[in-house]
């Protein structure tokens, strides 16, 4: 059973055009920039919010925010 290519993170900064800087909890990589997925529908995502990030295939510094994490 394959694992999901998703990691937990926390929003550290909200950037223009629905882009966020996210700090990853594991992975040993400090930060990625992430767009929201179309399905995420995360209005008012703010600094400090926990999110689940799906990492991009090619570029380890970028990802997509899949959903909010409580």
């Amino acid at each position, binding site marked *: *059973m*394959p*694992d*999901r*290519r998703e990691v937990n993170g926390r929003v550290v900064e909200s950037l223009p055009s629905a882009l966020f800087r996210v700090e990853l909890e594991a992975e040993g990589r400090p930060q990625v920039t992430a767009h929201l997925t179309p399905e995420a529908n995360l209005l008012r995502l703010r600094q400090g919010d926990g999110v689940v990030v*799906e990492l*991009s*295939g*090619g570029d380890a510094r970028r990802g997509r925010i899949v959903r909010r994490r409580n």
Partner: protein
Amino acid sequence: MSTTKSWSELQSMHRACRIVVDTLDVLAQAAQPGVTTRELDRISRDCIEKAGAKPAFLGYRGYPATLCISVNEEVVHGIPGKRKLREGDIVGLDLGCIVAGFYGDSARTVGVGKVSPEAQRLMDVTEQSLMHAIAQCHPGRRIGDIGHAVQSHAEASGFSVVRQFVGHGIGTSLHEEPQVPNYGPPGRRERLVPGMCLALEPMLNAGRPEVRTLGDGWTAVTADGSLSAHFELSVAVMPEGPWVLSAPYPFEGKAASA
């Protein structure tokens, strides 16, 4: 970080893997036109419990069945149900069990009756790319070498690699560190050390690599509706190279001598 396994722990993993492989052999025979996916799920549960093991997927993050069964455009995590298999379908069978606290995990894709040449080629290339992945499991190589081996073989054959799901370490839980992507540059990520156990599982699509998850929260399908195949083996990194714990049919001899 990933944990390495002792010799006796590897024995338990091997036992769990043998039960999974034996059950997959039964399921591959049982996957005939007209059989529902729920019937296959029941068979798998019977086999695993008769062997004295525990299903690994049942209840994992709320997964409702013993078997993941993914037909045609379904990539992975298909939930067994009323769907009847039809001649020409390709069926991904993914199964895991627990013996003495250790997990075995393995999958293969089989054709129902006669399948199209394109579907057969997709299954063949997926299995070949798994073999390329296993060939990388020597101490000192890196996780990235595995992904690179899969991706180069798959894309050279005209198929695409699913990125949203990855292989994983395996042992006392189903998903352990490290994650093992089936793509990416060689020479990167964690270094392989003896005693590491990895579940390698390339998932290849005939069309584009994107997948989406259906409303049941589990079933992943290709975004463009193209066919998808999935093979998985649990492998231990040994000082002398890979030991395929869930060695199926063509590897019988190799596993016995390892």
